[in-house]
């Protein structure tokens, strides 16, 4: 059957059927009824729909089993998944006639699958297997996974098909207007993942109308090794008079069908709102069209759930982040033992921001369950990072679990020629569609010379080829070894890279820092070696981003290339070389205008520098403060009031002021400080409220204007505030609350203070606080930080 379907696709554009759900609604499916159950009770209706599509010219008809999985049926109190699928499959077969094939339709469960949702991955696979078993028993010719929003759910369904027999499979995801699924999966990543996992056709359906779908097909087309499918809605849905309507007529719909074929779709049909007439017109319009030819050559592509990495002419080099590896990292080891993954997250973030394009993940740690840790790490990284993963483990069981769960196409680190492992790992890599790093080892002995490595590479590749791999599925590790141990190590690695690039035609990877092990100036050596390796054709480096800047230091180049006498010259030059350091240049400008501008522009560093410069040039500290800094801050306040500045600018200026005052402080005489000092402000976020950023902003503003702040923090009880008022005798008490429920505690504080006869001004603020509320409790209202300074000054005068 698989061959027959391939032949059908090769012959010309394949026509799929149109919508089932909206057709059933037209024919009487009651609101809120289970479509599958209703079809079994009204077989003539669904049979008619299938037959109409067959007559309209659909080559493939979908069974009405979109929601016939365990969780969906359970919503209607149904549990006989096998029987329902079998009966609906058989009914479709009977109705489709002899010309049309029947695809068993598999829709989403309504849950996102782990790590994106609560449904366990294996549970999802089992759910789909149960449905597939029924569909196969019903006699369907192929299976179609459709309307998927989550790549992990699509993977679970596809694996369920693969593990249920040798069946032709089509997978279509549903993309929103911005060409991503609701789970954020983009068409190219999904295509890379699914076609390598074994889908025979990949595509998209539902969500958008045909116009929007052209873009999705065009995005996938350059990377598609399998035919592409497009099954759009008949326009975008609108809710009119309590009913969903799709308003694209058959002719217009069919015109778009032709455009979809030109964009790259080899199979076209309709989704919601399309009926037999749409399919009839589509058939007529695309009749005789030949699908766009698929790319013949395989290519280097890795994916994660929400992004992908492709190595090609435009993208010739990438760094693999190496930090997620506990070896030699005690803190990380301890965290992994405790099941804590905060360092893993942190390393992922850091490496991504430093420019890594892939993340190596190794969690092998003595005294732990590596498989469990690896699955947890993959889950966390799949959710928190958009970089494809390199799964790094020497344990085949760990690798299998990881590949099965990973929601993308992974790179295995690594497969060597070790007989037992290579036999286990190659089929695993194939089953899950992974790429792998070929480690040119045949036993435990390291091949020191290029000739041995070449032999090992050829041997391992021969085995991989038998499993169905080609050279674009492989990255050769060229084995960088320490030059301090083997003077020829760099030279041999470069020879291996050159041969792989020019002759063998595979990508290469290197563990960069190995080369400089045991030598001084490691970063310099790494940088020079990477420059040489990239020039020779290196594609990937497991490296520290500090080592990426190109460098051609002559001493290091000669040393690495094993030139006569270069080793001793290198050592003579660089041993005892001082550590590289930053030479900071401080501006000597004493312009007060610079200081004013620094505050206006929120330039913290500048403010500190210009205060220093002003003092050096003879400015008087108090005058600098009164005549330059405070007026600048007041100007900022005015700009904020006029909405010329927004909050981050106001705060940046306040912080610049703070930084300048810190430098100025030692120059101010204590008498002068006292003279300029405003009153004491006691600040607190009231009991029950945990929001304090607003209070902290006000605190910063008040400090800059000379107020002394006593900050009690957040969630502070009335009793504690009253105690603090008694102890510190502040001039002003400033209270903050964000919620209506906690706002009332401000009134309680004021009331208690009055009862106790405590004399101080009260100022309140926060998102829900209003001027009227403030007045009602006998407090002043401050709408923001600038206003708070104004109010505080007024209260102080009182």
């Amino acid at each position: 059957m698989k061959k027959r379907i391939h032949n059908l696709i090769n012959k010309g554009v394949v026509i799929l059927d149109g919508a089932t759900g909206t057709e059933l609604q037209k024919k009487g499916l009651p609101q809120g009824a289970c479509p599958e159950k209703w079809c079994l009770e009204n077989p003539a209706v669904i049979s008619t729909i299938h037959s109409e599509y067959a007559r309209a010219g659909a080559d493939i008809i979908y069974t009405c089993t979109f929601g016939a999985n365990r969780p969906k049926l359970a919503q209607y109190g149904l549990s006989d998944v096998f029987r329902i699928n079998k009966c609906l499959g058989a009914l479709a077969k009977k109705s489709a006639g002899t010309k049309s094939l029947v695809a068993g339709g598999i829709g989403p469960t309504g849950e996102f699958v782990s790590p994106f949702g609560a449904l366990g991955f294996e549970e999802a696979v089992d759910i789909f297997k149960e449905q597939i078993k029924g569909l196969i028993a019903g006699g369907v010719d192929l299976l179609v996974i459709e309307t998927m929003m989550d790549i992990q759910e699509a993977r679970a369904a596809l694996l369920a098909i693969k593990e249920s027999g040798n069946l032709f499979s089509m997978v279509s995801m549903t993309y929103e207007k911005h060409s991503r699924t609701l789970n954020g999966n983009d068409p190219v990543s999904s295509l890379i993942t699914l076609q390598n996992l074994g889908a025979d056709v990949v595509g998209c359906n539902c969500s958008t109308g045909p116009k929007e779908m052209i873009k999705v097909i065009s995005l996938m087309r350059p990377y598609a090794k399998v035919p592409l499918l497009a099954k759009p809605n008949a326009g975008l849905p609108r809710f009119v008079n309590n009913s969903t309507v799709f308003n694209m007529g058959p002719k217009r719909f069919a015109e778009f069908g032709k455009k979809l074929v030109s964009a790259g779709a080899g199979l076209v049909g309709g989704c919601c709102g399309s009926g037999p007439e749409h399919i009839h017109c589509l058939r007529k319009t695309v009749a005789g069209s030949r699908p766009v030819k698929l790319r013949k050559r395989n290519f280097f592509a890795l994916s994660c759930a929400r992004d992908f990495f492709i190595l090609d002419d435009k993208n010739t080099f990438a760094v693999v982040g190496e930090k997620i590896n506990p070896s030699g990292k005690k803190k990380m080891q301890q965290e992994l033992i405790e099941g804590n993954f905060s360092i893993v997250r942190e390393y992922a973030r850091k490496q991504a921001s430093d420019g890594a394009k892939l993340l190596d993940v190794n969690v092998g740690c003595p005294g732990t369950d590596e498989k469990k840790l690896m699955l947890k790490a993959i889950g966390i990284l799949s959710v928190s990072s958009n970089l494809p993963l390199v799964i790094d483990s020497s344990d085949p069981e760990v690798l299998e679990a990881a590949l099965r769960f990973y929601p993308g196409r992974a790179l295995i680190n690594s497969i060597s020629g070790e007989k037992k492992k290579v036999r286990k790992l190659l089929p695993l890599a194939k089953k899950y569609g992974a790429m792998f790093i070929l480690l040119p080892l045949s036993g435990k002995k390291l091949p020191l010379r290029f000739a041995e490595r070449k032999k090992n590479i050829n041997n391992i590749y021969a085995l991989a080829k038998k499993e169905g791999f080609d050279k674009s599925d492989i990255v050769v590790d060229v084995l960088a070894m320490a030059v301090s141990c083997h003077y020829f190590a760099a030279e041999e690695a470069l020879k291996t890279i050159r041969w792989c690039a020019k002759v063998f035609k595979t990508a290469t990877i290197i563990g960069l820092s190995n080369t400089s092990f045991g030598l001084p100036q490691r970063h310099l050596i790494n940088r020079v070696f990477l420059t040489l390796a990239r020039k020779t054709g290196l594609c990937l480096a497991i490296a520290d981003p500090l080592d990426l800047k190109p460098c051609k230091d002559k001493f290091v180049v000669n040393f690495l290339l094993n030139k006569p006498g270069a080793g001793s010259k290198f050592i003579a030059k660089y041993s005892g070389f001082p550590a590289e350091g930053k030479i900071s240049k401080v501006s000597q400008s004493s312009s007060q205008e610079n200081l004013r501008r620094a505050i206006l522009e929120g330039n913290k560093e500048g403010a500190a520098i210009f205060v220093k410069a002003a003092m050096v040039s003879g400015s008087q500290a108090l005058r600098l403060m009164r005549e330059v800094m405070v007026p600048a801050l007041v100007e900022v306040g005015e700009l904020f009031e006029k909405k010329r500045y927004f909050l981050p600018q106001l705060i940046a200026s306040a912080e610049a002021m703070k930084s300048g005052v810190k430098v100025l402080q030692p120059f101010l005489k204590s008498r002068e400080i006292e003279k300029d000092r405003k009153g004491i402000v006691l600040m607190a976020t009231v009991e029950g409220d945990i929001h304090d950023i607003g209070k902290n902003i006000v605190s910063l503003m008040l400090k800059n204007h000379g107020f002394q702040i006593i900050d009690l923090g957040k969630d502070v009880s009335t009793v504690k505030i009253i105690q603090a008022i008694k102890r510190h005798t502040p001039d002003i008490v400033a209270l903050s609350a964000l919620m209506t429920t906690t706002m009332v505690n401000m009134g309680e504080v004021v009331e208690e203070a009055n009862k106790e006869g405590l004399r101080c001004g009260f100022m309140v603020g926060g998102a829900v606080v209003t001027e009227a509320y403030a007045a009602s409790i006998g407090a002043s209202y401050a709408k923001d930080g600038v206003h708070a300074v104004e109010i505080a000054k007024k209260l102080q005068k009182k």
Partner: protein
Amino acid sequence: MFKPHFFKSISVTASEENVYRRLGYKPGLTQLSSCQREEFKSYYNEAQEFLEPKGVFLEVPIKEKTAEKIVLSDGNSFTSKLLVSLLKDSGSMLTIAATAGYVIIEAINKNQKDNMAKAVVYDALASETADVCLDWLLQYYNRSISRENARLTPRRISCGYSDFDHRYQRVLFDMLNLEELGIKINANNMLIPEKSVIAVTGIIRGKS
């Protein structure tokens, strides 16, 4: 039969413009130097790494409606004219919750010590993200019911709006089993981490 549907990672991006609007940015009026624009943009980009948007939804049929009260089929009831008016055409109530996660809160707190400007951009992004997550949940739900000729009410409300009492936050918290997402609730019915929100809306089924 009706159980919460959890999403442990929601793929959403809050727009930079909306984040700045929350901080008082007025297009055409607020003046930003290129240097400041770049700096704030770097805060916005950097903060994305700390977000862990998650969410949950739960549909529960409405058993009874009076002029002031909604009684759900699970036995929970809410006295609120606002809620009654929101659900006037609905047969079910959809409760949704979202959070921006704990990591961003840690980052906000950390930055408040030495870079308050960064902290406020982080803070606004976290708030906007929680809101965008709620929109995402509604979009997801709308997608899943569109095949059933149904839709959601155009508006959503949260506890504390008008007469929809804040104490119902705890009832909704329990209904959604928010602990599954690591969210907690304090004695004052505030959600922790603070950039977490709960909202309700109605489900309107179309004509058969």
